[in-house]
């Protein structure tokens, strides 16, 4: 038996369902810990609503948030893969929109016409790479617009350096304020070029928030920025409290000697990401959702 396009679309429907219904373990744990640590009535109530909502979504197999995002996929393909994974994903998104259901979010950027199935020009958006495994790995982030709208790019000068990066991230958290459904998760992309910094900022959100960067200097910066942002007191939903940010991940790339691009991607508390592996026999496993 070989993997067929239909295996891919079946796996994508299931992946989207799991992803919008249940958070990855690291995010769920961080929210429950935040709920336990808040003492004031207003932030406690906000986090209680979030925790209750998480439980109700799992129980009812229902999307936890009405904003099921636009589907951004990261795909790792085996060498010589013959399946049209792109078509499989498009079909999967179309079906999941009806079957899960997902909110039809994808519209034409100017006319704002909504085709109703989350499929349109370059959407779902798919990034492809080749890997050394025999399985197809598909990762999706179903990210709402409330948080995505708070994302930013800065083309700093090299002389602004580390201080400039810190300033930009702190100001980004302040500017986002109550809007992105805090407590947030922040993805920071440092270096590369304008497009690479933004891409890295989003990809930083794919790493579990309880795993620090492998480079100790970057790990230190992650912790320092997270602690500083949590001193702001913006709190859950911007109504004040201790928890403004659940986690902050950095990814970096070398950049041109004359530039210092920095990207910030803001994620709401519902940090939904999911991965499926489709093996040559068509069987699928969901490593982010096996528990």
């Amino acid at each position: 038996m070989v993997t067929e396009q239909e295996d891919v679309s079946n796996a994508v429907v299931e992946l989207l369902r799991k992803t919008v219904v249940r958070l990855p373990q690291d995010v769920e744990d961080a929210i429950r810990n935040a709920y336990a640590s808040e003492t004031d009535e207003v932030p406690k109530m906000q986090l209680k609503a979030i925790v209750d909502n998480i439980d109700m979504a799992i129980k009812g197999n229902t999307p936890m948030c009405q904003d099921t995002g636009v589907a951004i996929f990261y795909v790792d393909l085996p060498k010589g893969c013959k399946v049209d994974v792109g078509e499989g994903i498009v079909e999967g998104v179309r079906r999941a929109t009806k079957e899960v259901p997902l909110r039809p979010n994808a519209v034409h950027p100017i006319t704002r016409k909504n085709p109703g199935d989350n499929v349109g020009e370059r959407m779902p958006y798919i990034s492809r790479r080749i890997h050394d495994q025999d399985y197809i790995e598909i990762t999706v982030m179903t990210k709402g617009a409330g948080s995505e709208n708070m994302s930013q790019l800065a083309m700093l000068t090299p002389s602004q350096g580390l201080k400039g990066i810190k300033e930009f991230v702190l100001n980004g958290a302040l500017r986002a304020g109550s809007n992105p459904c805090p407590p947030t998760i922040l993805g920071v992309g440092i270096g590369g070029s304008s497009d690479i910094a933004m891409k890295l900022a989003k990809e930083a959100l794919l790493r579990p928030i309880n795993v620090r960067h492998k480079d100790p200097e970057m790990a230190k910066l992650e912790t320092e920025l997270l602690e500083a942002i949590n001193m702001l007191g913006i709190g859950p939903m911007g109504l004040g409290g201790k928890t403004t940010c659940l986690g902050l991940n950095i990814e970096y790339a070398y950049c041109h000697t004359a530039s210092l691009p920095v990207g910030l991607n803001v994620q709401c508390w519902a940090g939904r990401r999911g991965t499926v592996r489709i093996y040559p026999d068509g069987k699928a496993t969901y490593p982010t959702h096996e528990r």
Partner: protein
Amino acid sequence: MPKRIKTPISEADARALKAGETIYMDGIVFTGRDEVHIHALEYLEKGKKIPVDFKGAALFHCGPIMKKVEEKWVAVAAGPTTSSRMNSLEPGFIEKFRPGAIIGKGGMSQPTVDAMKEFGCVYLAFTGGAAVLAAKGIKSVEGVEWFELGMPEAIWILNCDNFGPLTVAIDAHGNSLFADVNVKVKENEKKARAKLGLS
């Protein structure tokens, strides 16, 4: 016991609510976000008929996921959207249509706070992303208007029962919990900057 409030909301009802209170809502709630604000104001200007009456209404900044079950719409997930996107439209909307409450998340800017004070309207914060909890408070979907705007942007007519918890975050007396938090955040910013070695 938290206060229960029934729609439509009179100006006196709205003015009786105080920032910081937790309430639950019963009765009809209309969803309306970017496109509903734009269309309603445009229709009014052109003298065209608007399909619902916003007077005393609770307007919910929400683009739900709806599902048709045996010809009837059912709310699957219906949490609030970011209210600040409507900052430029809301003062005009409140003045022209006189709703009793706006339900959303993230708060709204000073011109809306001022309009709420002038015309007797409140802003009720519902926890963002808590869409299943919100759907639980929706007893039935009574109908939909302007469906051609797309599922998230249409006016959904929701019949609510014990919808909440809602925090009175901006009252009709000029108080805003978000503004209070912002004052504290400004002070805390100094400490955060010091921690990061920024002047």
